[in-house]
């Protein structure tokens, strides 16, 4: 069905593409997190000021 070389190199390509995609995804995710935190700061106040224990 699939040649051995296709499996081997295909697998490597999948791993590489996955790693690249993961890096891109997590970078975008991190940027999104920063933006969301800014929104949260705006909605809920800055994190350090909320929930101080006494």
């Amino acid at each position, binding site marked *: 069905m699939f040649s*051995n070389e*296709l499996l081997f*190199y295909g*697998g490597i390509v*999948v791993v590489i593409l*996955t790693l690249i995609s*993961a890096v891109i995804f997590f970078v975008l*995710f991190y940027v999104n997190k920063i933006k969301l935190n800014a929104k949260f700061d705006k909605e809920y*106040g800055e994190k350090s000021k909320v929930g101080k*224990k006494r």
Partner: protein
Amino acid sequence: MSEIIAGTYELKNKIGSGGGGVVYLAEHLRLGKKVVLKADKRKITTRPEILRREVDALKDLKHTYIPQVYDFFIEDDTVYTVIDYVEGESLDKPLKRGEKFSQPQVIKWACELLEALCYLHNPVHGTPPKGIVHSDIKPANIMFKPDGDICLIDFNIALALGEENVVGLSAGYASPEQYGLDFSTDSVFTESSKSKRKSAKRKTTAVNDTAETVAMKNIDETKTLKMPTSEQSKNGSKYSSSSLKKIIVPDARSDIYSLGATLYHLLSGKRPHKNAVEVEFLSGDDFSPLIIKIITKAMNPNPDLRYQSAEEMLYDFTHLRENDPRTKKRKKIIIAASMLFSLFLVGGAFTSFVGLSRMETMQKSLAFAEYSQNALESGDIDLAIKYALDALPEEGLLNPPYTAQSKKALTDSLGVYDLSDGFKPHKIVELPSETLKIALSPDGKTGAVVYSSSTAVFSTETGEIMVILPIVKSALSDIKYVNNDVIVYAGEKGITAYNIKTNNEIWKGKPATHISISADGQTVAGIYRDETFATVYDINGNIKATVSFKGNKQHILENDTFSDPEYNLMTLSANGQYLAVNFENGGLRIYDMEDLENDIEIYDKSDFNHFEGGFCGKYFAYTASDTKGISEFAIIDISELVQTVGADLDYHMDILINEKNIYLCDKNTIVSINPITGEQKETAYTDSDITVFANDGVNTIAATKKNNFVFFDEIASKTEEYNMGQAACNFVDISKDYAVAAGNDTRVIRILKKKQYESANTYSYDEEYVHDEARINKDESKIMLFSYKGFRICDIDGKVIKDVLIPNAEKVFDQQYIKNSGNLAVMYKDAFRLYSGETGDLLYEEEGLKSVLYTPYGVNIFNGTDIKLIDSDSGKILESGKGSGNFGAYCGIFVDEKFLDGGTLIGAGKIKEDYYFAVLKDEICIIYDGKGEKLFEVSAEKQSETFFIDTKVIISPLHGTPAVYSLETEQKITDLEKDAYLTYVTELNDYIIGEYYLSVSDERYGILMDKNTFETLAYLPDLTDIDINKNELIFDFHKGTLRRSRIYPINELINIAKEGDMD
């Protein structure tokens, strides 16, 4: 106003008033500290000691968001509470001004308030320890300090004390239960509840009617709690009709409600409806859904559904980000993404691992397949099979499908498709050092070999060494078989007779290197190196005679390690009477055991130094050669002392003599010579000079200078040929069903065994009838043997039905056997004849044709104007049309010279209902469909022909390599077998079988190929026909029988190899 209270506090000004009393700003006279004095005129019913204790509890309250209670005293029937002064303004003031607060701000305050409530509600205050409920949380009771924090003020001290008539209700902020409304889960008054109401422990008290509070009388009296009648319980009505007021002691959840209502007000700027069930939801457009949710939950009319503690509510406020739907969504996304990436990573890595593993396995498989082929070529069948099995690891995820090379290696090593009778590689024997001499027993079942300083006896059936015997360290050391069980060899301590069956020495004599045994097995003669006498023994080892050479000795090198024993002649006659010996001086004498003094002198002296010969009955034959190659050959009648045959030659000829025949080897030919007449009969003929040979009276084995050894049968037909590779073949012997071959520079002896496959016989015919091909008809009732010259039809028993001579055989250019009908189509350049396979009669005949073309779907003939397609089965005309020029054929359309435009139609086929044909022009082969549409073109050699099969076309040049192309993709798939003429291609299930003809050797064979890849799976020597119905192959060895074999699936071959059952 300067009123002094308790002699300690100076009232400064009034700062507020409410249902609970008046609130003053005061100053501690001694400390100068500002405090708040709250004067409460209500009657306190609590006993003083309890009062003191509870006040102390309040004084112990210490929290950032709760003002310190410093003191509590009664003066003039007024209860004074001294509380820390909190700067700032209460939150009700900005609300009244119409201000709203930002959500973050409100959240911050909510957390601070909840921290305060957590502290208050914690049951650690006072003795006994208990929690404290504020009970009047509202904006007015929350101070907004200059630092931005808040402070929860105005504790209802009386409530803290458990007073029953103290509670003030702040409309909109008070919880429903403070109004005596019970929405709890187990209440009979909930709409969904049908269970029995638990006893209510709620109490309500009257309240003062102030701006901040709402008196009980303003509450709909129908909403007060009362024990329902049984009838009312059945109806499930929410409220009783009684006007009985109840008493409620607010708990932590009431504070929760009040806080929620306060937050509601702070966010929306609107005080919530005093009726909890009528409170409007906060708008999702203005506030975060999570905040709305928290406040809504806090303000649930059912206290059981609110936050049950301040901690719970505080937790939600401090975990807004975590609980925010967007965060949860992100979490889900990150989890899903992580899982997906992990899946792909693991999947990709695993796939790569599988691919690598399969690649490695395939490499190993190919290597083992090659090892197997090498082992097969070296004659080691067992090793070849072992390697072939190693090349076929069990198929699985990590192991790729079997390679064609591996399958072929196993097929070749098992030899399942080689059904020809003859000597096949059987075993090998590995020696510690190179072979010096070898001999087989008369029955061929054992062999003896001399090497370095030992001789070994081995089994030809198993290849195992049975015994090792020490011998004289000399290249001259000899070994001979007396009979199947007894050998005589040049023992280390003397000539020795040894019984290999019983494994013991029979007798020992004087030292000897050169040994001869009479054909009757009764006499043994031995000469030791260059001694001047020979000792003759009887079969029991008794010395019969000592033959003196009178000072003469045989030609031996000083270091006889390098002596060639074949250069000296010492041989006994069949009955042991005569002993022929040659000498160093070129002499050759025959000694008579009965009269030793009367020896026969062949040569007294001569220049000859290489003598070979022996006795054949009463004749003595020999060859003698000198260093220049000058030779003499002679046959002498010993009884008459007459030379009957002789010749002078300028090259050496080997001679082999046994009791039946005299064989002479003249370069590449072996002949047997009649000792009387000198008549020669060819025994063997090879394509290169023969170096050594052996004959057992039936078969001959001859080694050549090309490092081959070749077998011939009794009629001098070559049966098998094997190659020794790099090693020369210096020693051969053959006896009955076994043969051996070895080289003096190898340590391996090849054992070959005669195999016969009579069980595979299917049909027989007269072996004398000369034919090129043999075919069996579809119903297996007749056999046709044919060549261009004619054909013979036989029944299955070989009985001749008809012999037909084909006219003008020299003009025939092609013949095709029609499997379906058994007919024979004979194509000439200008004629066509179709013969019946049943009767041999002519079914169709036409001459004077311009072109004749055979295709699998019929024979195309063209007479210059008419194109006809003749049915090969019936001889009827299937299609007819017009054409012009010198060529015409039907290929779905009528193709003539005009269409070809200078090209040549080299083949046509029909796959299912579709026609295809190929035209060769200027070394370009163009493939057309049945409508005459060009499909594609490829380069091709002149004189090519095509085969259309399945979805492929094979372009086969007359001299070159056939190539396979896909009709669908138009791409080349592979090349086929080189240097052989492809004559026919058959599709059979998962296989393609190509039939080849090698004109150089007049050899026909087939190749079994994988249907998809066209990789070679097996060679099919002497393949003549394919039984498509039974999926069987038919072989013709031109020995009078046809043999049949099925096609073995690879798994069956593996089982055969593992079980070791190849017979």
